[in-house]
């Protein structure tokens, strides 16, 4: 959000660069961000996404670490699902009940976690609010993603014809919108650095 100055007037102010977004009436989207911000967000996000999705050799330590993490994620989703499904079991990355799900890379919403965390951490403000916001955002996204896995389990069970649409099209956009709202809420609450305001 751009800071306001009551002393600025149309006639007296020096020339100022106006973003296309502002010209298009999209100031609430662009805030006080700049291309420097896009780079500060995009570069680490790209590196982390590549690190996560890299096709590591089977049985390499990184591949085993990722599998361990996905198994833990499956166990966590299984704990929640077992509140409603008594006979549900988790074996490795598989959630096995009346319907079965396998937790693989991207089922953990890691991509949106990376994008949102990098977007928050790149925002030009003090470190503490960024760390708090990033940690809170990750926790919230894990909760939302666990709900997503639970709904997909029941959808697979009771409405299998709509599973694909909800899995591939509806839930991803819901999670993305939640992430955007979280990000906009964060940038509206924090005070930007002086350098970013100028």
């Amino acid at each position, binding site marked *: 959000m751009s800071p306001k100055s009551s002393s600025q007037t*149309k006639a007296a102010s020096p020339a100022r660069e106006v973003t296309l*977004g502002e010209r*298009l009436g999209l*100031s*609430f989207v662009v805030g006080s961000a700049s291309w420097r911000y896009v780079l500060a967000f995009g570069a680490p996000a790209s590196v982390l996404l590549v690190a996560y*999705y890299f096709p590591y050799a089977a049985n390499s330590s990184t591949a085993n670490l990722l599998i361990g993490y996905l198994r833990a994620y499956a166990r966590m989703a299984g704990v929640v699902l077992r509140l409603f499904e008594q006979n549900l079991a988790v074996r490795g990355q598989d959630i096995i009940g009346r319907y079965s799900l396998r937790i693989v890379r991207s089922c953990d919403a890691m991509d949106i976690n990376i*994008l949102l965390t990098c977007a928050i951490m790149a925002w030009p403000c003090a470190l503490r609010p960024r760390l708090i916001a990033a940690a809170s955002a990750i926790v919230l996204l894990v909760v939302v993603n666990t709900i997503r896995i639970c709904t997909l389990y029941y959808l697979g069970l009771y409405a299998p014809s709509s599973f694909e649409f909800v899995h591939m099209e509806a839930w991803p*956009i819901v999670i993305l919108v939640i992430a955007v709202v979280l990000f906009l809420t964060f940038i509206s609450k924090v005070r930007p650095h002086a350098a970013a305001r100028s």
Partner: protein
Amino acid sequence: MQQLDRKRALLFLLRFALFLGAFLMPLPWLADAYTSAFDVAANGVLSPINALSHIELQFEPPESIDAKGSWQGQLRIRDDRTEEVARMKLNVRTFSYRPLVTYLALALAAPLSGLSKAVKVVLGGSLLMIGFGMLFSSLPILARFGEAGALGPGPGLAVVTLYKAVATPVVVYAVPLIVFWALALARRAQQPAMEES
């Protein structure tokens, strides 16, 4: 966020949801019609590439436009030297249609005033997204070649990683959002600061 901004942002979000919901509806004839259009456009892009190689890549559009069609594009790969032919399916909805309509929904939901602005953002951005769609669509094909070792170890790994990273359901939506944001950020003009109060 200022009160006015919050209201505008919510209205924007609502309009975006309505447009995207409409675009994602399973409309009759849409699947085959879009797949045909995509196949024709992709063949146009592929023809100069085919001229340089002994491998000919060509999409085969559906024979008819049916009300309940398919989003699976069919890519025909032919080796001129051995005359061997292989076919690959490509989900055009995932790699081209969804990024395009997500961008369109964002652009249409934006409070654009003036026809030229609207044309610039809606048409210009859509053309950009069609290009991205082509790039997206080439990734699963190239990744298949990469996994088979046809691209060499380095480029093969790069393509497979890129494919895995950008072909996830969330990133397919995130790319048009980032393009839209980047377009909105683009600095275009020097003008005196407006009074802000």
